[in-house]
């Protein structure tokens, strides 16, 4: 048998660290042992690969490392790459010097998504046009969602509750994953793992518990979470969080809702000029940065036609529909 080169062995060792999940996997472990047994050099390569894997964790901690996963198909003028990178570096510097007096603020442009690791091992995925600030103290991990939407995977730490505030609405977790979205008329809380408590900061005694697969919309007028309004639909939660993979998933939403979803991500803005058309319901998975593909699907499935009233604007209407009827 041909002798494996050190580089070949190293490449295999990288596959092993990549493939081995943190959870117990006895079969994978046995296969790994067999591989390690095949050549003592593999044991050295695997040690190095594991050490590098650990170093990458350290390198990623408390740094907005993976700055900018820009998904916008059309360049967004407000997005200044250099400025964003500079902000990342500044934040990184602040993190190495310890948390400053002011909490860190992170902002995403339209069409931009960003994943941010925190130094406690938690991670935040920030959606388009959002802003949040992070304040880590010994007693608490506090996030203020100022605008938009974010999903949180919280590292378990009973001594330091993880609290997300969106206006007067607060959501608390110890070790779990959930998303919070600020909308014009209220705050939506979606739980993907574990449990969270939702309450109003002015009424901390009235907490509503949500578990994985549940969601709760807290309307702005009241800002008080209502236990009777808890939705128990894991499919809906995962559809609403499809943005994390760059998708919009529609499962019977109205065209009006779908259009406002697309408009969050793109410079090209869609509008529906026909009331009946706006209430039609849609199904399907689309890319957040592909409004054209979505418009095509609407044209075909709802027999809609399109107009371009201005640059970067697409109006959807019914052929011969009321608003655009001219000569009759």
């Amino acid at each position, binding site marked *: 048998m041909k002798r494996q*080169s*050190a*580089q070949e*062995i*190293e*490449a295999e060792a*990288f*596959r092993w*660290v*990549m*493939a081995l*999940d*943190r*959870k117990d996997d006895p079969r994978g472990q046995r296969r790994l*042992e067999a591989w*390690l*047994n095949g050549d*003592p*050099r593999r*044991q*050295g*390569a*695997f*040690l*190095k*690969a*594991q*050490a*590098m*894997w*650990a*170093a*990458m*964790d*350290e*390198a*990623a901690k408390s*740094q907005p*490392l*993976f*700055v900018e*996963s820009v998904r916008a198909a059309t360049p967004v003028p407000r997005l200044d790459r250099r400025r964003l990178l500079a902000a990342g570096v500044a934040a990184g510097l602040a993190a190495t010097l310890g948390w400053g007096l002011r909490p860190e603020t992170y902002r995403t442009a339209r069409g931009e998504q960003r*994943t941010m*690791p925190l130094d406690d091992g938690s*991670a935040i*995925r920030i959606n388009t046009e959002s802003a949040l600030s992070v304040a880590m103290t010994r007693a608490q991990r506090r996030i203020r969602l100022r605008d938009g939407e974010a999903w949180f*995977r919280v590292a378990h730490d009973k001594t330091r509750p993880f609290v997300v505030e969106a206006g007067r609405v607060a959501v608390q977790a110890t070790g779990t994953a959930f998303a919070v979205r600020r909308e014009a008329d209220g705050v939506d809380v979606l739980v993907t793992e574990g449990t969270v408590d939702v309450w109003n900061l002015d009424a901390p005694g009235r907490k509503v518990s949500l578990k994985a697969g549940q969601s709760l919309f807290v309307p702005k007028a009241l800002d008080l979470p209502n236990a009777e309004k808890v939705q128990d639909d894991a499919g809906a939660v995962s559809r609403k969080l499809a943005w*994390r*993979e760059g998708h919009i998933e529609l499962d019977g939403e109205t065209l009006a809702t779908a259009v406002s979803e697309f408009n969050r991500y793109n410079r090209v803005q869609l509008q529906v000029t026909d009331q009946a058309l706006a209430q039609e319901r849609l199904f399907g998975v689309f890319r957040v940065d592909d409004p054209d593909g979505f418009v095509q699907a609407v044209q075909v499935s709802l027999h809609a036609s399109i107009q371009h009233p201005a640059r970067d604007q697409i109006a959807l209407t019914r052929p011969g529909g009321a608003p655009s009827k001219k000569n009759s």
Partner: protein
Amino acid sequence: MTLRADPKVVFWVSQHILPYEAKVRQSLARARVPEADIDDLLQEAYCRLCALRSVENIDSPEGYLFRTVRNVLNAQIRRRRIVRIDFVAAMDLLAYADEHPSPEEETSYRRYLSHVREAMLSLPERCRRILEMRKIEGLSQREIARKINVSESIVENEGAKGLRLITQALRARHGEDAPEIQWRRRARD
């Protein structure tokens, strides 16, 4: 027999050994040891570190790494019988570098981490996203595959590619790492 290093040893290696690998590589390259042989020597050195039971008593990990590599070299020289000029020169240079330790451990580690960070940032998009999901969002390979709608083997390939690219980027930084060493060939006695 120890197949896998103790988790404590893994962490120790990531913190105290990896930052000095570039310096060892630099010494060996100066002695004109071909790159494939450098890879072999280091792999063998890591293999020896694998057998460590405890690391508490190692005062200078940098010195320990240099000594380990020299032991590996020595064993090779003895085994081969044919004297390789590059290996002999490498013994000298390693001894010299070992006598001139890096200024401060903490600094070396920080610099190493910042190199790793830079390398991670310059990965191709898909590769980066996959490592990001794996490391930061804590997803398994299977979960990532399902999410981005590709096969598990593609996820594995991309992740392994990312690690390889990071290793290459770190290797390319040899020269910058130990500018404080004034290299000169010492006469052998």
